[in-house]
């Protein structure tokens, strides 16, 4: 095996079919990005923009509204898909999804605390745009760690046990958010409500950049241990006997999942099922090793979310559907199918 390293990723574990699939995912993503850039409620030609034949307003709409929004959709899609793949690998559970097991709810609680208490205290800091995503990351990190302690104490409990714990954690988090809603002032309540509805509208570059920063760091933190994550599937003791520092591996994966879920929830609220559906689709196409699954999930998750957002903002123009509605409409039947499949096996 030759060492093929690109950006810290060891690509020598990819099969020919997987390399081809990744190439196709990338091409599809580029195609979808072009479509998304040239469509929206404000109609103008993408070609004329490239030629420079557009007005000042059109350029502003394109660079300050449409591009950030599409990039946001990309980021949220890829980070939810990556975190889903990570959590499924870490817990060796095909039903792990940041929404289902309460990780997104933890992030939402973290972000809500900042929205309600933080605005008055911290708004004077330069790095205040980092505050919301970091609080959300801490929230999701606490939940993953908690899940980890709870499921470890009971051994490997089969796939359903974790979902039950997830239901409980979701309930606890919604109690927290409920209390925050109750004690918040009118303007804080407005912020909280808009944010929990989960929308890609109203995104600006200053809000987007911290998230990009966090997600890129998380990805490179994860990339050296993708092979180890494969070996972890044999079981923790087995991985340890194969020379893997399982404890360190877990912390890396927990950090990455927490950071990606936190950053995306902070930006767009809770969007369900992407983390569940995308990694499984990727696995069905060309295999289960994590070097392929993680990169594939990032690419396919971006494509899917950009399409979902495109549908959300164009289906009932000039009004807009919540994007979470569209992902749930696609994802929930898939979830049912997956349960039946696992039950049969």
């Amino acid at each position, binding site marked *: 095996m030759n060492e093929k390293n690109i950006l810290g990723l060891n690509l020598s574990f990819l099969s020919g079919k997987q390399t081809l699939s990744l190439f196709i995912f990338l091409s599809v993503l580029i195609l979808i990005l072009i479509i998304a850039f040239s469509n929206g409620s404000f109609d103008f030609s993408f070609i004329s923009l490239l030629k420079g034949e557009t007005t000042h307003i059109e350029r502003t709409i394109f660079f300050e509204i449409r591009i950030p929004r599409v990039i946001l959709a990309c980021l949220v899609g890829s980070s939810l898909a990556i975190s889903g793949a990570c959590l499924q690998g870490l817990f060796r559970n095909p039903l792990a999804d940041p929404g289902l097991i309460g990780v997104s709810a933890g992030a939402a609680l973290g972000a809500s605390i900042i929205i309600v208490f933080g605005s008055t205290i911290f708004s004077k800091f330069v790095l205040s745009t980092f505050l919301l995503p970091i609080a959300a990351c801490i929230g999701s990190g606490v939940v993953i760690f908690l899940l980890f302690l709870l499921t470890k104490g009971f051994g490997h409990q089969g796939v359903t046990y974790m979902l039950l714990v997830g239901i409980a954690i979701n309930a606890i988090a919604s109690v927290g958010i409920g209390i925050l809603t109750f004690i918040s002032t009118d303007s804080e309540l407005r912020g909280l409500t808009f944010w929990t509805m989960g929308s890609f509208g109203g995104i600006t570059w200053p809000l987007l950049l911290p998230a990009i920063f966090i997600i890129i760091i998380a990805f490179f933190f994860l990339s050296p241990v993708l092979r180890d994550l494969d070996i972890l*599937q*044999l*079981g923790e*003791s087995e991985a340890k*006997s*194969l*020379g893997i*520092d399982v404890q360190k591996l877990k912390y890396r994966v927990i950090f990455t999942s927490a950071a990606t879920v936190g950053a995306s929830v902070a930006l767009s609220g809770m969007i369900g099922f992407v983390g569940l559906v995308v990694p499984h689709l990727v*696995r069905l196409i060309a295999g289960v090793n994590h070097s392929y699954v993680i990169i594939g999930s990032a690419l396919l998750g971006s494509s899917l979310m950009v399409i979902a957002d495109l549908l959300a903002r164009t289906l009932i123009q000039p009004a807009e559907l919540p994007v979470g509605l569209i992902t749930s409409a696609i994802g929930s039947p898939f979830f049912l199918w997956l349960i039946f499949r696992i039950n049969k096996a």
Partner: protein
Amino acid sequence: MSIYSEKISLKYNDKSILEDINIEIKKGMILSILGPNGAGKSSLLNILSGDIESNIGNVFYDNTDIKNISIQERAFIRSVMSQNQPIVFDFSVRDIVEMGWLDKGNIKYSNNINNAIIGVLNDCEIAHLEKRKFNTLSGGEQRRVHFARSLIQLWRESGNKDSRYLMLDEPTSNLDLSHQIKLMNMLKKLANNGVGILLILHDLNLAFNFSDYIAIIKNGKLFAYDKPLNIINKNILEDVFELTFNVDIIDNKINVNYI
């Protein structure tokens, strides 16, 4: 050259699991651990492999305390096959066996990976399963795949003199009779090539006929630890398993029957 333990004891919630165990896996020898369920056999294997730490006592790999050997270095010295857990994703048989290939720090062997894997797959008679999904295999076939993975982990070029040890927890469970014997013969061959082998077994005939040493554990204590024939002569099986045994020895072949 050996892996040995020095007075190890293990407690779990004040319940004593293992008490004061001294045991040695010698290079080129097969040591089988026997004993009733819950006697502490697997715990002992996990301590010797470095998976868990004992409360008291130490484990040494070739005279170095295991605490001074990194997890990565240990993987080059010994491989372990435990009682396996389910694998949720659809890895192929080849994928699973390749996981035993320690590519970090093993670059000089990298060119041999294909030959080594094909050789081991053939030895374990699973070459025809190479492309199959692991999850679709029968229990016995899965066992053989894991065995192949633990062999690949210890693979070396011929002539290499590294100390290597194999620790197998019930390797014959789920195997048909012919594969049980084939597996034991392979272990015998590995031992002749200098590999030290630790087995946990329930089949007394396999244990007594293929092992160089037998250790019997009961209630966390080392009840007997000797060569197979000496253990038979001491007539202690009945005390351990609380059954009546009938033992025949013909041409050094030991045949144990329960009555």
